[in-house]
């Protein structure tokens, strides 16, 4: 089973497709969650996902806007897609019949 941040990372990398790399994934996560994503959390999660076989990473070409430094490119593997899909299905199943809007109103 994936962790929440692992799911976010896999989803962001899938959305970005062939343009998935460290800075772009981080930007996607920050945009989606409206929270800062630390580079430490992202890179250790990328390592963990690669160790589990859910992503493959390699060093890309250097670009001028990065001061001539290479990117760590990311590709989601078939087992990564299956794991993210299973996580999403679990979230959907457990969320059935629960209305967060209603709950929020009740708390108020």
């Amino acid at each position, binding site marked *: 089973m994936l962790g929440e941040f692992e799911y976010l990372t896999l989803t962001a990398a899938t959305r970005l497709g062939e343009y998935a790399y460290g*800075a772009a994934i*981080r930007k996607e996560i920050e945009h989606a969650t409206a929270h800062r994503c630390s*580079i430490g*959390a992202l890179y250790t999660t990328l390592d963990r996902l690669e160790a589990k076989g859910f992503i493959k990473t390699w060093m890309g070409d250097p670009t001028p806007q990065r001061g001539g430094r290479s990117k760590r490119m990311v590709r989601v593997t078939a087992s990564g897609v299956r794991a993210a899909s299973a996580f999403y299905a679990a979230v959907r199943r457990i969320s059935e019949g629960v209305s967060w809007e209603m709950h929020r109103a009740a708390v108020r």
Partner: protein
Amino acid sequence: MGDAPSRSPMMTQACWELVEILSRMLDSDEGLAVRGDLEESGETGLQAVWGVLGLVVRRQAALWKDWRPWLALVGLIGPVSLLLSLACRWLGAGYDLYLWIIRNRRDIDPTILSQTGLSVPGGIVLLGLRSLLLFCWSWATGFVLGAMSRRTIWFNGILFCLALFFLGSQLDHPYQDGVYQYSVDGWPLPLIFYTAILPLILLTTLILLPSLWGMHQGLQAPSRLLLTILWVVAVVIALSVGSWLGWAFDGSLQRRLLLLAAYWPVGYLAVTEIGQRWHHRIGSI
């Protein structure tokens, strides 16, 4: 690089210099990718430092899941650095004595020297051999520290150097009731040379530099250094076998434990090298 205008350029420059230094503690590819990401994202200098520091701390914490850096920390940095430091101080006292004898040899009655078993040529040979022993022992300790610590060497190496300088001086300082305990008249050099400069020279040349050299080589592939390792082990065994035998048979339990603590890096080197050679030979048959 995306810094707020209120930050001084010097501060920004210093922060990015720090980012460069910190990212060297990461794998070279990862360091490059991280610095590129930070630059592309337009992070401020402080945010970049904080980000890289967070990653370095996570990476270092992950390295400590292995038992080897712990063994290096507990088994080497504590006891061996203390013993090396103390051995250096005792050797320094020997240097003091022989420097005094050399300086005053014309005024000393030769019968006193012969009765005490002290002689200038014998003293020079003894100090030379003990210095060589300390040099090889330090190299072996540094080598094992490097080989065991691997990427935790930043932490373990700095701690080892600090322990060398501060641990020994706390336990064995040359003053007794405010007076230098080896003090005698007729010294050729001022007192500060014996109390501060000579111990520092010996500590640097016989312990610090060889152990740093050993650490550097221990981080590389040890198989290339087989001959050096065997030479160091042979020198240490040859020069200290006398005291080993004396301590092993006549010494108290504490002395035997101290002996074990002091020489285990040399034993570890010998055993791992012989083991590797044996495995290599079995593999090639």
